[in-house]
């Protein structure tokens, strides 16, 4: 009896961790995109980036709320999003990379959207009803993110000499953060085996196909996969996350429990 109980506890802990890291991915990326608000090259793109950021915030909220419920310690979405320390965040390193120029922002979003699109589609058949429901909503949103960023990749790559060069640089800079997308650690393995999670390693071929098809049309090439950065899932971040959190958490740290 106690054995069964422990198993449930363990898998709840794993589910919590799995949902939380997904939430962190979306929160941090959304915060990054939000930095463009009022700064984007055109009014139209300002709204486009803000729309994507808001989609991601919506996904993060649903995931944090669910994570809090799974954890069962009474933490709500705000406490999970704002009241943890840097090493507790488990987001992928690519999501915290600086916006750089417009090319870097577009390549980052393109890489992630080309990954999240098949990810959410597969998550729609998760045995976990809540995750399946979140996935059903998210997959429509991310399909647009992928289409929008793909169109930009094509136009910037096959645009002017300067836009092409900037895209080449952005691809070179961000390529080393793509290996982490497909890693399967113990948490991900357990979730996969219990029919809840997605086999991220199995998404690699589809991701490469999507990315290469668009890059080819953009007269660009996917850089050779060299050394890959890793560590986000265990809380080992680049120097950028601390700065993001100081801005992101400021209000809740100054006025704990503040609501709109």
């Amino acid at each position, binding site marked *: 009896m106690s054995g069964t109980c422990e198993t449930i506890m363990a898998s709840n802990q794993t589910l919590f961790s799995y949902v939380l890291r997904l939430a962190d991915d979306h929160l941090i990326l959304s915060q990054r995109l939000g930095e463009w608000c009022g700064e984007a090259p*055109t009014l139209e793109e300002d709204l486009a980036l803000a729309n994507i950021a808001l989609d991601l915030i919506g996904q993060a909220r649903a995931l944090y709320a669910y994570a809090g419920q799974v954890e069962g310690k009474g933490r709500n979405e705000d406490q999970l999003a704002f009241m943890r320390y840097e090493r507790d965040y488990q987001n992928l390193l690519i999501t915290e990379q600086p916006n750089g120029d417009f090319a870097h922002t577009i390549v980052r979003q393109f890489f992630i959207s080309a990954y999240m699109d098949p990810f959410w589609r597969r998550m729609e058949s998760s045995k976990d009803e809540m995750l399946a429901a979140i996935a059903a909503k998210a997959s429509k949103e991310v399909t647009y993110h992928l289409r929008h960023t793909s169109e930009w990749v094509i136009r910037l790559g096959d645009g002017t000499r300067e836009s092409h060069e900037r895209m080449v640089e952005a691809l070179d800079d961000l390529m080393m953060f793509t290996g982490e997308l497909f890693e399967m650690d113990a948490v991900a393995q357990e979730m996969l085996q219990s029919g809840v999670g997605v086999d991220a390693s199995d998404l690699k071929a589809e991701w490469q196909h999507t990315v290469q098809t668009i890059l080819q049309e953009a007269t660009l090439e996917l850089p050779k996969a060299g050394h890959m950065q890793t560590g986000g899932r265990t809380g080992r971040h680049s120097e950028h996350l601390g700065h993001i959190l100081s801005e992101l958490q400021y209000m809740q740290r100054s006025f704990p429990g503040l609501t709109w």
Partner: protein
Amino acid sequence: MSEAAMPLWEVFIRARNGLSHKHAGSIHATDAEMALHAARDVYTRRGEGQSIWVVRSSDIVASDPVDKDMMFEPTASKIYRHPTFYEIPDDVGNM
């Protein structure tokens, strides 16, 4: 952003099935596909649309304000063109 690289487009949105597309505003975009994206992102953020048309503003042929009298004034005095002299049976309802 130069007008040549980012020309102006007019945006028309159909709010619901059965309605016609209505002019919503205009946006700048490099080409037709990006114009559709921009129109979607700028004008349908709050569930306003079921369908979008975009058309290059330069492709629209507009009447000249100078011709206003010639174009529109003559119709003002022809009230018999309005169907206000007919009795509409109750069964027909609103027309």
